[in-house]
């Protein structure tokens, strides 16, 4: 019998499982797909924008009081968020990726469009691209690469005062084949011969004193070595800029967490979409997942829902305005009227109301109904499905996932002895 079944393999689900395993719980993860880490930048965003202000947040802690009272950060409080992020940063699981921050302030690193994006922890591969660095940049791409355009990045960074220029290398030095996605390109660079070709091609391009920005394809499995080899070969700082998704830094993070779970004997079962559940007297007994033959039952003492919001598949909706949570049909704070879901602008600074709603929880991160009553005694929730926030708009996606997952698991660990076995 499991102590905890985690549903969802995104950042919230994976960190929850890792934290639970560390706490000695018997835990398993089931998920429909690979989780949305594959799309993300691989950086850990804490809080990038508040309200409709145009400026990026400098000190996230100072701005949290401005968030909605029900926001997960307001429930957690600064200390618990800091602890969770510290735990993540120091976790052996992600040690090789070298997450660092800038003390008490956000780090600004270049986006693939050439905007500065505010983040809290940047992986080592992205750290040398930070804005508070006087060195000029050269952004280097590859002719015909679909998901990375150095001229666009340079143009926009330059418009914001960065000394930067762009260059293109031939595609053929990476691969003889045109049809390669970002993850495949990264795997090609795991090979030292490809690394050497890249170093040789970069040498005549890079001017003394310049730091070098490259698409985030610097190694799929051997990323730290590739980064080190390039820095040594060019004798200057080298950094990655995320690409149009899929994003290799996000894939690396997912892979690192999966490996750490595997090493602890925690199973992550992908292709297991949760499609139903059994509950009695307000206690969930099992969750069912779809297989080709018949539904499979997963029993556990506690359940953590980390299926994400609309993007992760945690919510679905239809043309009648019905908007529902897909596993337990939990109460949602989303308006049940389509006319209230959207604003006229895709880029409206207030975001879209449909994406602000979600699963309301109490301070223990247990889903509650409109009256504030716990829905199921042994159900917790974490990550993108939580209500009272829009983590994509706020740029809080990753830290919300980590902090809420850790908080929920700590609660589960503390009460699990009391749960029926």
């Amino acid at each position, binding site marked *: 019998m499991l102590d905890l079944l985690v549903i969802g393999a995104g950042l919230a689900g994976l960190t929850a499982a890792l934290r639970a395993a560390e706490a000695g719980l018997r835990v398993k993860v089931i998920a429909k797909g690979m989780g*949305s880490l594959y*799309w*993300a*930048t691989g950086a850990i965003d804490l809080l990038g*924008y508040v309200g409709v202000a*145009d400026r*990026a947040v400098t000190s996230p802690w100072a701005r949290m009081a401005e968030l909605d009272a029900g926001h997960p950060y307001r429930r957690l409080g600064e200390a618990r968020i800091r602890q969770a992020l510290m735990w993540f940063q120091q976790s052996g699981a992600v040690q090789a990726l070298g997450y660092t921050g800038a003390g008490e302030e956000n780090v600004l690193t270049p*986006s*693939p*469009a*050439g*905007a*500065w*994006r505010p983040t809290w922890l940047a992986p080592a591969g992205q750290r040398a691209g930070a804005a508070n660095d006087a060195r000029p940049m050269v952004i280097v791409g590859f002719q*015909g690469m*679909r*998901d990375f*355009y150095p*001229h*666009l990045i340079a*143009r*926009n960074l330059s*418009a*914001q005062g960065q000394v930067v220029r*762009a260059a*293109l290398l031939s595609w053929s030095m990476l691969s003889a*084949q*045109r*049809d*390669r996605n970002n993850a495949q390109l990264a795997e090609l660079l795991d090979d030292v011969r490809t690394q050497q070709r890249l170093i040789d091609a970069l040498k005549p391009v890079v001017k003394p004193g310049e730091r070098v920005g490259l698409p985030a394809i610097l190694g799929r499995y051997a990323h730290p070595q590739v980064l080190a080899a390039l820095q040594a070969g060019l004798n200057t700082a080298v950094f990655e800029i*995320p690409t*149009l*998704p899929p*994003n290799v830094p996000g894939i690396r993070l997912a892979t690192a967490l999966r490996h750490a779970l595997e090493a602890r004997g925690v199973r992550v079962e992908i292709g297991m979409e949760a499609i139903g559940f059994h509950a009695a007297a307000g206690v969930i007994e099992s969750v069912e997942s779809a297989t080709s033959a018949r539904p499979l039952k997963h029993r556990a003492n506690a359940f953590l829902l980390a299926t994400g919001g*609309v*993007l992760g*598949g945690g919510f679905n*909706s*239809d*043309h009648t*305005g019905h908007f529902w949570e897909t596993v337990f049909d939990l109460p949602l704070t989303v308006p049940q009227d*389509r*006319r209230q*879901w*959207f*604003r*006229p*602008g*895709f*880029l*409206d*600074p*207030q975001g*879209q109301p*449909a*994406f602000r709603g979600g699963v309301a929880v109490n301070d223990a991160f247990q889903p509650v109904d409109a009256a504030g009553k716990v829905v199921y005694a042994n159900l917790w929730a974490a990550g993108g499905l939580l209500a009272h926030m829009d983590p*994509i*708009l706020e*740029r809080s*996606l990753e830290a919300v996932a980590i902090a809420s997952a850790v908080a929920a698991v700590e609660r589960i660990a503390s009460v699990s002895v009391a749960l029926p076995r």
Partner: protein
Amino acid sequence: MRRLTTDILVIGGGSTGTGVAWDAALRGFRVVLVEKRDLTHGTTGRYHGLLHSGGRYAVKDPQSAIECIEENRILRRTHTHCIEDTSGFFVVTPEDEGDFPDRFKAGCAKVGIPCEEVPVKAALRREPLLNPRISRVFEVPDGSADSFLAAHVTAQAAQQAGAQILTYHEVIGLLTEGSEGARRVSGARVRNMVSDEEVQIDAALTINASGAWAGKLAALADIPVRVIPGKGVMVAVNHRLVNTVINRCKMPADGDILVPVHTVAIIGTTDERVADPEMLSIEPWEVELMLAEGEKLVPGFSHARILRAWAGVRPLYQEGYAGDSRDATRALALLDHQQRDGVAGFLTITGGKWTTFRLMAEKTVDKACIQLGVERACRTADTPVPGVEQGHYWLGHRLHEVEEERLQGDLVCECELVTRTMLEQAAANNPTVTLDDLRRDVRLGMGPCQGGFCTFRAAGILQELRMQAPEALPASNGDGPVWEVGYMQSPRHNVQPKPAVLNTAHSPLEHPNLLLRDFLQERWRGVTPVLWGRQLKQERLDELIYLSVMNIDHLPPDEDASPLTDFWQFDTTPGAGRATRDEAPISNFQSPAKE
């Protein structure tokens, strides 16, 4: 002010206007066509794509039916590659009671539309998703048309015959001379929407082919023309539920046509009389109606993934008519303003439908010949436009060429199979001001992700092209590039292109952030009326990409506006705070709506 002199000035770059320019140029007239935006930006680019056999009008409007079947046959020869030979079914659903099916069959026979009754079983084998409760099926030679491509190749044919095509040139005034009772229109003043330059065009004859805008245009010369703007809403689902055009066998009404077009199926339409041809907003009830009617043709329709909804405004015209727009005639209306209003040198062509655009052009230029006192025969019915040798469009055509040429690695739009060189050639060889122009050229951003991936790529590629462009390009004289659109849709044809040189002088193409914002906002406008389920998930991914990964809402500001900005700002989803043109200019990335 620059001045041009021409025989015929055509106003409007839709199917009718390009058709008139083509016809007139083939007859040896000097022709200038002006369009205030991109070709097909108006109603032509907003229709469901049905090439009528005439069946729809066989009972109600036999004259229209005859015109349709005749033109259907001609367009299959002259615009072969713009047409998919889908064939069409008229199906009798349980809702369609009465004697209409027999009247339909008789009507088709009377006007010469080939019509064969197909056993229901055989019809369901061909279209397995059709409502199994249909009782009768008639097959007619309907087709599916690419109205974007057709207008562009028609414009290219016109240009090859000597016509000058000026897109992004808005008419700001008609030139009139003479006193009351003996007035004549002698051309127009137009403004280049990109450079702001004004041009005076002196013309022996001015033809108003501005469709639903014909009344507004004629008003510039104080001529009353009452167009009945009939708004039609269409909804596209993300794949071809059917491969045959499906019509309900009943009196034409709302939501009774389902057309397979390229990779999607489109249901249409409504018919609402609106006050202004720019009123393209979509009401929730209109979407619900399309879904409910779709269910009658294809059970489960309302659970299909809906990509987008949009509206077009029909340019219906009926002298003295005051009723409902659904019952207004679909026949063409050619107004000779000399006879009608005592104003010489000015014709208005409106009404009609896409299928009869060539005929409308023929009749108009016939009249022009009379007015100009010359006798020149129409040649369009026997003159193929560039690219017809490719044969009819077929669904697998792009995929086939991408696979044959191994172009998978060069796809910038995976949904619609657009290669990088297709995009580059379209940007360089067709007048391009916004990414929306490239959408009409190569279908960029029209698939399930609605621009999620290709918008960024297109902006990046255009920026690269711009950096590679020679420092000083020859000053544009406003005539624009040579159109090359016959093979625009072919990945193979663009494998070894000539170098693409982008002329971005004074163009929004200089402003990649503006291109990004405008196209994303424009795509959003068309998805919000139908955003739920999987398409909502897709849209949230687009948010993750453009907000979280790209942070494009915090890019340094570019120019405030392009011609596309004006469009998405003006017409937004109802109930969510309608923006108007009167509001103050907005900051670069913020929506005009204020709470």
